[in-house]
């Protein structure tokens, strides 16, 4: 009975690495951003919020195409990374991480922002009265209270990055073990008419996605029943 080939396994491992790296970075980078969005009265709140949400509505090929061009030898990011001695990002794992950060950004920022918004001022004010400084209040009061938001952000970012296709296709160059993720591998199987292998991976994706969404459901604190 056919099952996953070594190439399939390499793609699965790479996809999990990419999703884990992206999720970890997103949680770190998006926490201050979401905090600012949740609490600021700046007139920049609207525009910044819209930019954060852009990847939700843009086709991934648009994101991938612009990243390919801006990271290329004639693009601003390409100039920057070359000047910093990092070389160019397309066709590399770090390049895919950057693409995934952009692609999954709203899936991390928005749940965190909702969580911070729903905290309300009272707990933080109480902590302030008890003498807690701003950083202390953030780490010992706000973060623990916003825990469900972090769980949602982490699960959604991870799952969304696993499901990424268009951006990787545009940026990756389909290099085995470096940029060939599961979704691209499935695409290749289908195009090459290797439907059995395609079914194994595609079916795996369906099961995985279902389990992730179920996990999200279980991990959420329930509303107490009256």
């Amino acid at each position, binding site marked *: 009975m056919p099952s996953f080939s070594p190439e399939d396994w390499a793609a699965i491992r790479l996809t999990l690495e990419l999703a884990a790296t992206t999720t970890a970075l997103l949680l770190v980078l998006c926490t201050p951003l979401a905090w600012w969005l949740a609490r600021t009265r700046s007139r920049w709140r609207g525009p910044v919020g819209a930019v954060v949400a852009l990847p939700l509505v843009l086709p991934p090929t648009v994101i991938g*195409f612009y990243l*390919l*061009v801006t*990271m*290329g*030898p*004639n693009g601003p990011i390409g100039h920057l990374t070359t000047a910093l001695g990092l070389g*160019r990002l*397309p*066709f590399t794992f770090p390049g895919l991480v950057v693409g995934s950060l952009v692609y999954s950004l709203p899936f991390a920022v928005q749940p965190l922002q909702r969580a911070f918004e729903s905290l309300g001022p009272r707990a933080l004010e109480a902590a302030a009265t008890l003498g807690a400084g701003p950083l202390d209040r953030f780490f010992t009061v706000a973060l623990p209270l916003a825990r469900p938001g972090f769980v949602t952000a982490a699960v959604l970012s991870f799952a969304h990055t696993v499901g990424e296709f268009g951006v990787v*296709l*545009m940026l990756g*160059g*389909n*290099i085995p073990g470096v940029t060939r993720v599961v979704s*691209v591998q499935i*695409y*290749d199987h*289908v*195009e*090459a*008419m290797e439907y059995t292998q395609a079914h194994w991976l595609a079916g795996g994706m369906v099961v995985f996605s279902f389990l992730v969404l179920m996990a999200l459901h279980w991990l959420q604190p329930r509303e107490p029943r009256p």
Partner: protein
Amino acid sequence: MAHLKNPILRSLALAGLALIGLQAQAGEVSVAVAANFTAPMQKIAADFEKDTGHKAVLSFGATGKFYAQIANGAPFGILLAADDATPAKIAKEGLGDGATRFTYAIGQLVLWSKQAGYVDAEGKVLHKTDWQHIAVANPKLAPYGLAAMQTLDKLGLTAQVQPRIVQGENIGQTYQFAASGNAEMAFVALSQVTENGKLREGSGWVVPANLHETIRQDAIVLKPAQGNEAATALMQYLRGDKARAVIQSYGYSF
């Protein structure tokens, strides 16, 4: 029509018949076109409509994807494939009419760079080590990718070049990798970088035909269009001088 004595009624009936006749004549056929043949086919379809009154509705994409769609009941009338294997498979599986199969174009492979003077006239640049990336279409999916790998094999360069290969899913994407400058050069279809028989920009080496298997691009009439007059007319038109002139101007042969 002898019983239609009234001349008005008679002319009306004739007009009606003529309309029906016109409808049968000005047919429509949907065509799945291999991505590399996009530009010439747009021109040919416009000429075809002007010359015959029939309309060809074009969809562009990868041949493998078209096969999957056709096998699952896509209503395409004609497939202009990027290879000869897919139409053969379609004929064998009864998804199309094998008798209509013919080679509408033979593709030419070119090693191309966006930079002028980068690729020399003999492709010696392949032996150099001062470049980082060469874009090649996935050889499993794209005939041009397969021809590129055969060429590297024949030149004995596969092992040396392999680590620097980046793959496009089709030659459109492969071209994009080189056109954006991210890969110094790419193996693409001559049709992608040629206009009126000349390179549009950059530099290129047309790979000699003896370095790889012939890239035969075959056409076939599919089941949904059996008996469709427009489909038959288009297959005929593709063999005509006018269409062939267009095909040739994009760097294909026959």
